[in-house]
Structure formats: C-alpha cells, structure tokens
C-alpha cells in the first residue's frame, strides 16, 4: 500500500534489465557491440517518448526525478538562458520563479536555492483539495516570471493540477513552464503536446522499473544547461557513460505503462474506491484528503483524528501492511506534512494522516485485509488518546 514511494520491478522489465547487463559495451563505442547498445538506448528513448507523446530527441536520461528537476532550475541561472538575441529578449531581466507550496522537496529546495541567489520565489497556496489557487497565480503572472514549476500530481494526496491551463497562462505571460510528472506518469495520461509544457520530469522506479534512472523532457528550442559536464552523451547535456541496463529497463517500463494505462486506471480506481468506501462505512469521523475527483486513481490519503500517524503506521506494519504518514513523528524533523498543512487541514489532521497508495499488483483480497485491520487499530489508538471528543 506504498506504491507512491516506489514500485517493485515488473518481471518483464527485470528480464530486459538483466539481459542488458551482459551487453557491457559502451554505448558510445563505434564497434558493433557498442552500436548494439546504442540501438537499445535509442529504442528505450523512443518508448519513453511514446509514453509522453514527445519526439525521442526531446528526452534525455538522468539519474532520476531529483536530477531532472534540479537541471531545470539550474538552467534558470545559466548563461544559456539568454544565449541568442531572441532568448535575451524573451528571458533577460526576468528574476521571478513561481512554484507551489506542495512540491516535492527537490523542487522546493531548488527554488529556495534560487531565492538565496537573489531571485524572487513565490510558493503558490492551494485550496483544501490541494488545487492551486488560480486567482493568486493570475496575479503573480503579472510579475513576468521566468519559470513556473507545478507538479502534475501530488505524491501525498494525489491531487491532479490542470497543467494545460496553468501552462497556457504561463506562456501568455512569457514564462517557461515545467511540471514534475513523476507521480502522474503511468497512472494517468501524460501528453506533452496536449499539456503544452516546456519541461517535464519522469522517474523510472515509480513505474515498475529500476531505481537510479529518470528522464527530462525538454521541448525543442527550450533553453537547457548541463549539471554534469564533460561528455557528448545526451547531446552534450548530460555527461557520463550510458547506463545501458537501467535505460533499457526504463524503456520497457515505459512501454508497459503506456500499454496498461487504461487497465491500471480502472483497476486501481475500483480498489481505491472500495478502500475509501469501506473506511467511511467502518470508521467514524475521518477525512479523505485530496481532490474528490481530480485525484490519482491509486492514491487515498486519509486523516484519522484522535489517532497519531506514526502509531497507526507501526500497528499496520506489524500486521504486514506498509503505508506512509504525514505525521511529524515519522518525519525526523518534528514537522508535519507540508502538503497537508498547505491544504489548511490543520496540524491535528496532518499528524493523523495515512497515505494508502495502490499499484498494479494490489488485489481485492489485500484491500479487504486492510479494511479488516484499520478500523480496529483506529479504535484502539483512539481509546488511548487524550483527544476525548473522538472516542467512538
């Protein structure tokens, strides 16, 4: 029940990954073995392009979502941004960045880094369902931002933003638009042409592929600078010997994700709704977080007031159920989830929140097992609790 954290390897991806381990040649070598690896890399790139409806040459491989996101933000402080006179006219003098208050830490921290360098950064507020406040957004766009970065779907509450509209508004204001689609890809349709974005981040291990590999879509013509220099790989944008097995595995994972997208959506949505309806029926006084409709089909975030998240997580862990929590007690920082706090649910509901994220291997029997365990655990913890108003 923790598929948004990571996913197991699909056996078909595993086969491709292992097969490629024996193709040890350097994908940059000119000899036959090298050319074979280069072809496998090209094929993988094409599969990823097909998943997001881009051209293969608009996709570069990185070490994962965090690197992809860092690369976009790093470009905003790079001279490449204003290399041509056209670019200079478009982006010169722009020093404002707009992102949201519910991004992944790698975007938050990248934005704060730019802030420390003198850029103005706005973290857009969200409403109770986690949707970006569009009126604040429209107002901030008047500041002529350089970059807007808004995640497509949230990892914690699953809320899906209207990226197409947000990107259009950004472009009308002359800004570049990036979306972190790490949680969206493989779960809902991600089509860069339809969305109209300049940059889009992908990660492989969220779609049943290996860890340590990701990608960045860069629309043809959009400015981009390297983080890792010193090689011709990825058009000179990302140096380092090609990671053949991971790239081939990513290609296969992307192919399967595209092929299974419809089935995945139907299957996980049905299970998620079964879980949600079961909780609502069996457990009094709970709150379902995230948007009621614009939400990932696999993600169910629930607050159980009166019970604390880490305690719920550990009691579930003992029964063999893995989940995650927005509670401060499990974060190591003593701060509750920034995502839930941004939605305004308040600290008590954030401390008592549990994320159930389902995947393509989740079964109805597993969901029913969770439904058989959670109500009694909540009842037990509420029984210990000083929050007497929630004692059922």
């Amino acid at each position, binding site marked *: 029940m923790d598929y948004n954290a990571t996913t197991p390897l699909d056996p078909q991806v595993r086969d491709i990954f292992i097969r490629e381990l024996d193709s040890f040649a350097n994908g940059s070598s000119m000899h036959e073995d090298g050319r074979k690896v280069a072809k496998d890399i090209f094929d993988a790139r094409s599969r990823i392009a097909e998943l997001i409806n881009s051209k293969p040459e608009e996709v570069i491989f990185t070490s994962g979502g965090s690197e992809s996101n860092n690369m976009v933000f790093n470009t905003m402080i790079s001279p490449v941004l204003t290399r041509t006179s056209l670019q200079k006219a478009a982006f010169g003098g722009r020093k404002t960045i707009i992102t949201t208050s519910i991004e992944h830490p790698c975007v938050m921290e990248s934005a704060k880094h730019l802030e420390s360098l003198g850029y103005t950064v706005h973290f857009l507020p969200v409403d109770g369902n986690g949707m970006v406040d569009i009126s604040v957004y429209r107002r901030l766009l008047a500041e002529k931002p350089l970059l807007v970065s808004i995640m497509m779907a949230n990892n914690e509450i699953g809320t899906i933003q209207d990226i197409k509209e947000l990107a259009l508004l950004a472009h009308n204001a002359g800004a570049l638009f990036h979306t972190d689609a790490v949680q969206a890809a493989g779960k809902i349709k991600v089509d860069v042409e339809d969305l109209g974005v300049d940059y889009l981040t992908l990660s492989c291990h969220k779609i049943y592929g290996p860890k340590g590999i990701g990608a960045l879509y860069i629309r043809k013509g959009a400015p981009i600078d390297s983080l890792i220099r010193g090689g011709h790989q990825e058009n000179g944008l990302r140096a380092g010997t090609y990671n053949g097995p991971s790239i081939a595995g990513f290609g296969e994972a992307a192919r399967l994700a595209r092929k299974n997208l419809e089935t995945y959506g139907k299957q996980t949505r049905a299970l998620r709704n079964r879980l949600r309806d079961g909780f609502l029926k069996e457990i009094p006084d709970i709150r379902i977080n995230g948007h009621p409709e614009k939400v990932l089909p696999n993600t169910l975030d629930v607050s159980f007031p*009166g*019970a*604390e*998240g*880490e*305690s719920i997580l*550990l*009691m579930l862990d*003992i029964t063999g159920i893995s989940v995650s929590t927005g*509670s*401060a*007690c*499990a974060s*190591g920082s*003593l701060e*509750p989830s920034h995502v839930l706090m941004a939605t305004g649910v*308040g*600290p*008590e509901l954030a*401390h008592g929140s549990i994320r159930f994220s389902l995947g393509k291997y989740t079964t109805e029997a597993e969901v029913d097992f969770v439904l058989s365990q959670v109500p009694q655990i909540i009842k037990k913890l509420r*029984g*210990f*609790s*000083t*929050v*007497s108003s929630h004692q059922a």
Partner: protein
Amino acid sequence: MSEWLYSDVVKDHFMNPKNVLSEDEAAWPNDGRGIVGNIKCGDQMLILLRIKDRTITDVRWKTYGCASAIASTSILSEAIKGMSIDDAYTLKPEDIVAKLGGLPANKIHCSVLGDKALRSAIDDYLEKNSLPSLKGKEHAEVICTCLNVTDRDIEDAYKAGDRTWEDLQARTKIGTACGGCKQKTLELLHQLEHLYGE
C-alpha cells in the same frame, strides 16, 4: 519480520499498554491530575494518580502520540506504582528511556513526556492538599557549563516567552562565555516548540 524500529520492550508496551484509562475520566477518581503536550504538536499526555501517605498507589493515563510516546507512558505507569512522590518527582526522561531499552535520539525529548505529566500530577496533588511544593527538586541537566544554565532554566524561559538564542541569552546569560552549548540549546528550543507550541 526484520528488526523493528524500536526495542522489543517498546513494541510490547506499544501493542499492549498497561494502566490505560479505559473509562470516563470521572469514573476514576484521582488525587492528582497532570496533562502536558499539545495535540497540534503531535503529542499529548494525561496522567491520573491515586496517592496515599505520599506514595503512589495507582495510576491511569491517556496519550495521543507516536509509538514511543505510548510505550514510554505505559512503562512509566508500571514503574511508579508504590513509589514515593518525592522519588517520582525526580524521574527524568533518561530513566524511562533506559527501562525501554533505548529510543532513537530524536524521539527522546519530543515523545517522552511522562516525567513532565507525572510532575504536573504531583504538583496538582500537593496544591490541592495545601502541601509544600516540590518545584525545584526535579532533575535538571546542565546545558551551559560555563554559566551553569540547566534544561529546566531553558524550559522556564521558554514558558516565559523566550523563543530565540538571543532571548535566552538576555534572560539566562547562557552561552555568553564559550558559546559551545549553542547547538544543543537550539535543538532543545526546537523540541520545546514542538512540546508547547508557538
């Protein structure tokens, strides 16, 4: 199952906590009542004591909090039965942690509220019975060895409104000599913020 996050003792007390108040508070008459912590910060603890001849005869508690908060209150409730209130007053978090077979370092100050709730319940008992206060007898750890400032001093200063290193220095002179205790003090401040709220 692979190694658990906490010790077996913690796990046992977490899954089967002892002396939990299962009835309405009114149905368990007490001689002393203490409540500390803040739901907004993620931990709150209530302790009820029955006391006879300065000895704790029985105890009930409730906790909203993480596994270590539940387990530490449970084990404390076992340990203090039969203990004199004078001894109980000097218990410190480390004593409870030792009984639990250890806790992760970042869990100690935020989740072990039992000693504070216990002192608050004893204070309540003494006050209700017009007995002399034990305040000042609690265990204190010296944080600033140059100026002899303890964690209790810092806690009192926090309660009086101090929120920053500079506030504390103005009130207690902490760290005004070598300054080597700054990091530890800032961590303590963060934990107090978690405990008492802004």
